[in-house]
């Protein structure tokens, strides 16, 4: 039976890890919120500033779940998987790129006009080389993602999976990432639909 060993929510100017708020920045736009979090957590990865906002959100959540909390040496890199989903694909960046077409198009923006680039950024940082998938749903399809990740683990395609929801469009952002492994750790919860729903709903009372 797989377990969710850690989880991260980013929404409403707030970041929470395992239900504990670790960063808030009220009255800021998303760009200031993201750069403020980067400095607060002393991430030290200058490429962060070059990423689009979808990648920054996913990268930030992954950083909080994987750095200092996850012993990736337990697994071969090929056994570390990523399964993400969202509603707006890369539309946030697509629209920004379209605006540059009136002048000289930006190559740095163009490379982010695919939603799965966030997976690549996380893989480069944390050396994940296993199963990868990015799905587009109208809303967070918890039953689908729960079953898909279970299947990835049961089939042996991966031994640990970082999965969940990373969505952004303009100032609306919503991140729910969780790390799923076969072996539980203190504080783990079972990987099932209800627990994912509880995690996803955990910031609903925010501002």
């Amino acid at each position, binding site marked *: 039976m797989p377990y969710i060993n850690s989880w991260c929510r980013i929404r409403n100017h707030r970041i929470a890890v395992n239900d504990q708020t670790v960063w808030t920045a009220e009255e800021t736009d998303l760009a200031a919120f993201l*750069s403020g979090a980067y400095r607060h957590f002393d991430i030290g990865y*200058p490429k962060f*500033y*070059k990423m689009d906002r979808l990648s920054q959100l996913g990268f930030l959540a992954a950083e909080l779940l994987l750095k200092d909390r996850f012993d990736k040496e337990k697994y071969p890199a090929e056994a570390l998987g990523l399964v993400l989903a969202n509603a707006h694909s890369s539309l946030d960046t697509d629209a920004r790129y379209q605006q540059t077409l009136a*002048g*000289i198009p*930006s*190559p*740095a923006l163009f*490379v982010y006009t695919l939603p799965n680039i966030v997976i690549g950024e996380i893989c480069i940082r944390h050396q994940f080389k296993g199963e990868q998938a990015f799905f587009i749903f109208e809303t967070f399809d918890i039953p689908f993602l729960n079953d898909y990740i279970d299947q990835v683990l049961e089939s042996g395609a991966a031994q640990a999976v970082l999965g969940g929801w990373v969505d952004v469009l303009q100032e609306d952002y919503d991140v729910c990432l969780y790390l799923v492994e076969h072996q539980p750790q203190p504080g783990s919860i079972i990987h099932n639909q209800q627990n994912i729903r509880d995690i996803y709903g955990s910031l609903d009372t925010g501002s």
Partner: protein
Amino acid sequence: MEALIQDLKVKIIEQLNLQDLSPADIGDDQPLFVEGLGLDSIDALELIVMLQQHYGIKIASPEEGPKIFHSVRSIADYITAHQKVA
């Protein structure tokens, strides 16, 4: 030339989102790629865009790229030479 070099450093930081750096952190002759600032191929494309947008200079021959973009000073030299021609 010194004013152009300073202007270039500001524009490079802005164009490439090098928010952890200030102009003083970039040496005039410091290599920009690989062992220097660690810029990559996408950054090279952004530098080409920067030359076109801010200085009206198009690089006709891609083979010239490594020489032109070796350092801030080499970019300034290229701009100066081509603006004189214009």
